[in-house]
């Protein structure tokens, strides 16, 4: 049973630098985990290019109809809240719409419905230098990434060391799932009113879950920074202000991990890492 510290990195919108931060912190730490919970648009593997050691299938249960026992009462069709079942001359199941609630099997009085497993995606575990990477992929057509994220989080539960969780953008249920058991949250924000607006949204989410947090102001330019103003107003700790830097941008756009390259300002990631570790201990 390992002891770990889970650091979730999130932002209200995409493109602010969540992956930049989580990838570089994981690389700076060097011994822990990089976890990519953005299962719709995973990007972390483009930086780490990990050697994949293990792949686990993510399974859900879906109904299976025994047509010999079915009397065509349509109780299952009428029960399903998701319209995953229909009846023309026989019961038809729409697997991709099914939410795996098990209700149809319970409601069938003919005992004609049993449950069978279906793969909805995979979780892959890899390694890049000494950083362990965990990521997931949803299968085409699947409605929700939550089963994949749940499997990812289950995998890291008993691991040791620092775990950096790259969260999906936004504040929908899939983000909530990713930060539920975090020890600390890093909020990444841009210096525009869009950035401040989205920072406010995601700050509300973090407060709802009562998580300690700090902000990274990214792509800072001279002049007024509405996101900084928001932090000062609310008394949120500003962990670091990363200036807009063409060199960092170029490294990042080429899928390079700044702390592993010859980047002049890589120190900022190491000091950010120390600040976060201090906050969490």
């Amino acid at each position, binding site marked *: 049973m390992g002891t770990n510290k889970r650091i979730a990195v999130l932002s209200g919108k995409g493109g602010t630098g969540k992956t930049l931060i989580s990838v570089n912190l994981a690389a700076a730490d060097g011994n822990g985990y990089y976890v990519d919970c953005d299962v719709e*648009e995973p990007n972390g593997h483009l930086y780490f290019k990990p050697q994949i050691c293990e792949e686990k299938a993510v399974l859900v249960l879906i109904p299976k109809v025994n047509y010999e026992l079915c009397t065509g009462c349509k109780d299952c069709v009428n029960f399903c809240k998701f319209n995953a079942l229909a009846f023309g001359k026989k019961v038809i199941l729409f697997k991709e719409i099914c939410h795996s609630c*098990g209700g149809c099997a319970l409601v069938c009085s003919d005992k004609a419905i049993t449950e069978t497993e279906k793969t909805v995606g995979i979780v892959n575990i890899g390694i890049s230098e000494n950083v362990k990477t965990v990521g997931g992929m949803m299968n085409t057509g699947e409605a929700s990434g939550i089963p994949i994220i749940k499997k990812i989080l289950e995998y890291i539960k008993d691991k040791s060391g620092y775990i950096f969780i790259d969260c999906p953008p936004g504040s929908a249920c899939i983000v909530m799932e990713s930060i539920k058991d975090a020890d600390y949250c890093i909020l990444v924000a841009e210096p525009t*009113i869009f950035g401040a607006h989205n920072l406010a949204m995601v700050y509300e989410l973090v407060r709802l879950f009562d998580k300690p947090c700090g902000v990274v102001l990214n792509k800072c330019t001279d002049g007024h920074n509405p996101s900084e103003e928001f932090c000062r107003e609310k008394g949120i700790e500003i962990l670091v202000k990363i200036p807009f830097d063409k060199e960092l941008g170029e490294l990042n756009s080429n899928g390079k991990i700044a702390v592993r390259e010859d980047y002049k300002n890589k120190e900022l990631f190491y000091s950010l890492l120390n600040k976060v570790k201090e906050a969490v201990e």
Partner: protein
Amino acid sequence: MKQLLILSGKGGTGKTTVAGAFIKLNNAKAYADCDVDAPNLHLITRHKDMPIKKDYYGLPKAHIETNSCMGCGLCQTNCRFGAISYNDGYFVEGNACEGCGVCELVCPAHAVSLKKAVAGELFLYKDDSVFSTAKLKMGSGTSGKLVTEVKKQLIENAKEVDLAIIDGSPGIGCPVIASLSGVDMALIVAEPSVSGISDMERIIKTARYFGTEIAVCVNKYDTNLVNTERIEVFCANNDIVYVGRIPYDSAAVVAINSGKSIVEFDCPGGNAVKAVYARVIEIMQKKGDL
């Protein structure tokens, strides 16, 4: 009404900045923000009146009537989503509840029922122009349907308008697919980074699947010229119309922060956006949309 949708695949490529610019250049009388998870367009559009608000109901959520509850815990045992917890009585965690109705089905005391739950709010601005937008409530999961409501609200209130400009959602999932419905042209704003290219390819695949006319432009192209060229070559090899490139321009930040569009300033970024706009309109005219 013809619909021009601005998409990106990846977040942060400049979709809303471009959409805002197009709205200004077109003097658009109808536009919408389909990014219901993190709507931003309203921050750079100016309307004098307050919007008309309407509650949006997503899937109903389970509710346990504590007075009728026997405490048997069957609801919790049968819930596949971990949505039922116990703390001096059983209760439903709204955010985890998927509205499947199994708890209601198994409860021997009839203490559980599914109740209408507000999952977001729709906003309609209607003065010189019609602007439809919405905000999904934190933790909700039915954004595709809310996007459909945003578009429906727009179409119903701007029937006589020729061209509507729609700021789409990032990603490639349900909300994007809902925004693609009925669209005449989708402009993809791509970013010249490895993740930007990866996500651009996926959004193109999605848009093509629905037979939508596509065009691509590259934003912040000077942050990586090699990747920009990669995108241009990709378009040429895959028969995708390429409508131009926009440089990174710090004027964009200044513009946005003062609630304006980049095309209201005389700057390289603004001029490049104007050229992309002209190209897109030209294509739509040739197609017979305008």
